[in-house]
């Protein structure tokens, strides 16, 4: 039981802003005190006097002195965050919720399917898996972006390709002259992957529509409900399982999730909305 003030954010200095794509930036923050999180957990980030929004860090959970948060310009708060310059002070609360079930991933063939800014939490997971490579059998990462320019973390992808046991497949919804690879939504990549499904676990993160079709495809491939993990995007406002904004049926996504296995949530209402 925590007796501290659960609503009060820590201060964190913004030390770097990285432009990942025309609509996505990463913000590197140094919190005023050590800040630990498990991969897949999220934080509430406060833009002073303006608003607060939930984000899953995109940096490695093993790095304790700084935290990186990748944000797509999507609404009022995120648009203002995009205008921030290094040196600004932000607020951070958390970490909250239940992250990726690493124990259930180790020793398995891990299939990771990401779309758009959904790569952010997955990069944190990939960092973690990379650092624990000896516990990992095989990681296949399938990533789709709207177009080649919207693909984030390009240098990281190139690096990941060179790592033993890690395999990367990419696609874009709409190609341009720079693109010679696969075209179509992220799920088209699943036809190409070689994976022993019985001994595999899938992790999906992306826009709701992509997660919906991703899950349908995985089920079609033979994955069982309990072998599929999803990071749910809901309106996590307090992060404490109290304010009610992120309720999804019986679950408070902020506290019971945001990572769920598909069998835990498939009967809840409107999971893709």
């Amino acid at each position, binding site marked *: 039981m*925590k007796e501290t003030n659960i609503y009060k954010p820590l201060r964190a200095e913004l030390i770097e802003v990285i432009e990942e794509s025309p609509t996505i930036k990463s913000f590197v923050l140094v919190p005023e005190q050590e800040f630990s999180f498990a991969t897949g957990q999220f934080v509430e980030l406060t*833009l002073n006097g303006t608003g*607060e929004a939930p984000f899953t860090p995109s940096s490695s959970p093993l790095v304790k002195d700084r935290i990186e948060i990748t944000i797509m310009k999507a609404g009022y708060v995120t648009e203002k965050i995009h205008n921030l310059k290094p040196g600004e002070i932000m607020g951070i609360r958390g970490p909250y919720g239940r992250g990726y079930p690493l124990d259930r991933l180790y020793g398995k063939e891990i299939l990771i399917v990401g779309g758009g800014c959904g790569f952010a939490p997955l990069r944190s997971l990939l960092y973690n898996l990379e650092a624990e490579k000896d516990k990992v059998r095989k990681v296949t990462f399938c990533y789709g972006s709207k177009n080649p320019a919207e693909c984030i973390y390009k240098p990281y992808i190139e690096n990941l390709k060179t790592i033993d046991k890690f395999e990367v497949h990419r696609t874009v919804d709409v190609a341009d002259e720079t693109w010679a690879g696969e075209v179509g939504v992220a799920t088209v990549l699943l036809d190409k992957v070689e994976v022993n499904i019985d001994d595999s676990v899938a992790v999906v993160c992306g826009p709701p529509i992509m997660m919906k079709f991703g899950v349908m495809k995985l089920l079609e491939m033979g994955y069982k409900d309990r072998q599929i993990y999803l990071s749910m995007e809901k309106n996590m406002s307090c992060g404490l399982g109290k*304010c009610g*904004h992120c309720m999804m049926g019986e679950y408070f996504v902020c506290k019971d999730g945001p990572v769920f296995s598909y069998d835990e949530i498939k009967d809840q209402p409107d999971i893709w909305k």
Partner: protein
Amino acid sequence: MDKMFVISMTDWQAVLGQFSASYSLFAPVEFNGSQDYELVDKENTGNIIYNHPKPATPVKTFFLPVKENVTVESGIEKPAIIMGVPSCDLAALDILDEMYLQRDYTDIYYKNRRENFILIGYDCRSIVENCHCTSYGLKPYPEKNCDLMLARDRHLVFLQSLSARGAELLKEMGKYADIIKASKDEASEINEKRSEITRLLKDKNKNLPGYELSGKLIKDSPDKIWKSYASTCVSCGACAAICPTCTCFLLIDRPDFEKIRQLDTCQYPGFEKVAAGEDPLGELFVRFRNRYQCKYVWKPLKFKSIACTGCGRCIDTCIGKISKNELLEELASEKNS
């Protein structure tokens, strides 16, 4: 259970006079044909309403103000006595306590008030139109979550302590008044009145399904009935604002990293909307149904306490004239037909 004590109404007024000086004393007072908690002093203790249900606002609002800055030091508040709390509102504190004191995170503002506010519960000596506490296993008299029980009979006031703090308070009263043990006859008369009100409530709500059954009925219900009942809903959120068990809130940012906790409800459009635009509760009837599902279907899966205590205020207050009880009775009768 502790013994019942009795005090004359004249002495009781003297006690209230003393208490209003050393405590912030709140009690139900009539106003424009309805009653609500007011701060009383020795000049107006005569206006207090006794044992008639129920204050327009639930006691929740003392512990969870509509708006509160939850990042500044919470000032030490003058000790408060809240008198006249009906059993439905006392029982509702169970789920508020679970939500705000337990589940890994404690809200220190709520906790501070729960620890410092003294509650005096009332026996309900009458029922009003939409009361239905007994349908959900509650009694129309205080059983828990309060320090003292109070029942007034003409010129006598009966008191019984329900907590150590209540016993202390009785002792304190002894300084200003003659408090004697109630006789066996007096105590049994109180019990008879309790039984009578319980019987009236049960009789009045004989067609209303119980709490668990309501959950099952709601879970299996078709959209049709919700669309029909929601047709006069205007998403004003009054049902939730006035509900003793609704706990949802919004955090609002202020400069200097301050945050305001403001009570909120799933009945307002956009409550669950995310930045990318998805809105699970976008449709009005879905939003309307959500509050019922939350109380009867989902909360029971995660909480030990009941999420509706049958106060009936949501029905009293609805400007769309939607009756929760009619809806549940209709679900029950459809099931049987």
